[in-house]
């Protein structure tokens, strides 16, 4: 694969905005959890807290015509792609002003304007959708990205689609976010062999990266995208990361190994991001705090507006798109 030194190209303004997006995602998820507990967000949610560097790192090297398929754990991916927090929140609040009018909810967000062809509630659905997007994009210089977790690498969709994409040389980048667990089950308990051995068996180029370090993710993603964009077929990226909160609302949480959460918190992507701002870009603590505060303020306003937004009116819905 071509080596792209993506990190070198990041000027301070750009990096600040990436850092801000990571902060925005974290705070967005905290807000969603709070709103859930207060009964304003319903059903279930799968939060992205802890994995922010992945979505933001990958999105930072996407082109304007690329396409992304994410999962039920998709708030982070959506925000990183530029989906407005207000519309995303309103969707979760079930409001008419939501990005899907309140019809879809947390697990099924779609925002084509922002390159998000969907969040997929079925494990493996994102992989299939991105593979199909790759079929549509082949020869255009654009790439499709699939996000999915470690647990999903045991699913039929994963294998069939990787083979399919390789045989047809589709421009797809498969991003496996290995957060160590599929729901409540450690990935090693249900996965034979190493995850990377699987794409390797299909002869996809494979990279592993530190998923908590935006620069590492960005660098690996840039290379993978470049590979796919240049007509060389699909590429695979496994990023190691960790989710801080339960899998979903009903998570008993018994499965974490002692000390594991703390150890990962020490490598928090926001902490690493803040350090980078200070060390690489000479930002002061106040500079960073100002960014954090701006994200907070944006979300406070979004929360207020969201809670005041109207609910959709029930009414007849066409089953089919008319001609």
């Amino acid at each position, binding site marked *: 694969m071509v080596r792209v030194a993506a990190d070198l190209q990041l000027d301070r303004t750009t990096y600040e905005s990436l850092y801000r997006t990571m902060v925005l995602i974290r705070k967005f998820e905290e807000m969603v959890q709070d709103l859930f507990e207060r009964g304003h967000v319903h059903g279930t949610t799968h939060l992205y807290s802890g994995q922010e560097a992945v979505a933001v790192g990958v999105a930072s090297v996407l082109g304007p015509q690329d396409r992304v398929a994410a999962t039920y754990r998709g708030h982070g991916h959506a925000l990183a792609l530029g989906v407005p927090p207000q519309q995303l929140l309103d969707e979760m609040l079930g409001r008419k002003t939501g990005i899907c009018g309140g019809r879809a909810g947390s697990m099924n967000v779609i925002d084509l304007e922002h390159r998000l062809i969907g969040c997929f509630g079925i494990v493996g659905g994102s992989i299939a959708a991105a593979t199909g997007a790759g079929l549509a994009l082949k020869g255009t210089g654009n790439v499709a990205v699939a996000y999915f977790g470690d647990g999903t690498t045991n699913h039929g969709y994963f294998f069939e689609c990787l083979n399919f994409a390789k045989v047809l040389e589709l421009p797809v980048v498969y991003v496996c976010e290995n957060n160590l667990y599929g729901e*409540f089950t450690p990935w090693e308990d249900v996965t034979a062999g190493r995850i990377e051995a699987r794409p390797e068996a299909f002869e996809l180029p494979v990279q592993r990266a530190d998923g908590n370090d935006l620069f590492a993710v960005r660098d690996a993603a840039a290379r993978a995208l470049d590979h796919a964009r240049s007509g060389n077929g699909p590429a695979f990226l496994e990023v190691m990361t960790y989710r801080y909160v339960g899998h979903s609302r009903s998570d008993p949480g018994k499965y974490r190994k002692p000390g594991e959460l703390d150890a990962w918190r020490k490598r928090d992507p926001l902490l690493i991001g803040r350090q980078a701002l200070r060390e690489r870009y000479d930002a002061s603590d106040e500079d960073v705090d100002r960014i954090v505060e701006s994200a907070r303020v944006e979300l406070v306003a979004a929360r207020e507006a969201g809670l005041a937004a109207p609910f959709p009116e029930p009414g007849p819905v*066409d089953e089919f798109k008319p001609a």
Partner: protein
Amino acid sequence: MLMSTTTVEIEFRTAIRDALAEELERDSRVIFFGEDVAKAGGVFAVTKGLYERFPDRVFDTPISELAITGAAFGAAVCGKRPVIEIMFGDFLGLSLDSLVNQAAKYWYFTQGQTSAPLVVRSAVGAGGRFGAIHSQMPISWFFGVPGLKIVCPATPADAKGLLKAAIRDDNPVLFFEHKKLYSLKGPVHDEVIPLGQAAIVRPGRDLTMVTAMKGVHDCLAAAERLAERGIEAEIVDLRTLKPLDRVTILASLRKTNRLMVVEEGPRTGGWAGEVMAIFVEEGLDDLDDAWRLCTPDHPIPYSPALEDAFLPGADAIVRSVLDRPSFAHTA
């Protein structure tokens, strides 16, 4: 156990867990597996403690619905009595091939030599704000498949008694658990309740309501309100959709001459249509009125404002009855 009936009320989810535990205890051929069902006890906390009691026969699997269902089939035809959990009914599309093309046909192919005795447990139904891909009723995907039984309990007692029957049944059985019922409490017995027998859960002379699962409770609530207006609805809880208890339905219809089918599921292509077809085929002379109340033919909305309006609850049932010409005078 000493008591064969207990007045202690237990949750629907506990009734299911007890049925599983008792069958695992009774028959060493029973095995139970699925995603996050063992160590974690299931995402709806239905199967907690089973792994601890039966560590060799209760286990977690990879996220691999094709393999889980296919393995259940293969184990069943080699002497086990597998029970699997497909976490949400919405994922059963991935199980369909194996159930339809292998499990459901084994008994026929082998001329009754053998069969594929397996049970698929799955959480179904809307009302929990889980959105369009975690709230569906997958019944219509399977309802037209010969050789598959479909069980749909409405109460803890039925959940327990029917699940035990399902595990003992020699055919592949789909066992659907409505999410909104998991916390429902009720008395349970030790009885095994035969598959294929509906129950009259409320007698009445004016109208037969045929329904299942959560619909039973909605119909019961609606019937109370209709009774205030002098309309006495008889409620048939189907309990098993396949085989369908035609006898009980038709007996009720002969009394009331009016049929309302309440199904949580899209109007087109649901089992409500089948009940109406049976009515026509077998009860035409007694037919005064027949209609169904289902969900609209579009995906299940997430927003509470939309989902509540989408589902046929007690209000909608009352309204639907009072809208019929034959009951209009009472409205």
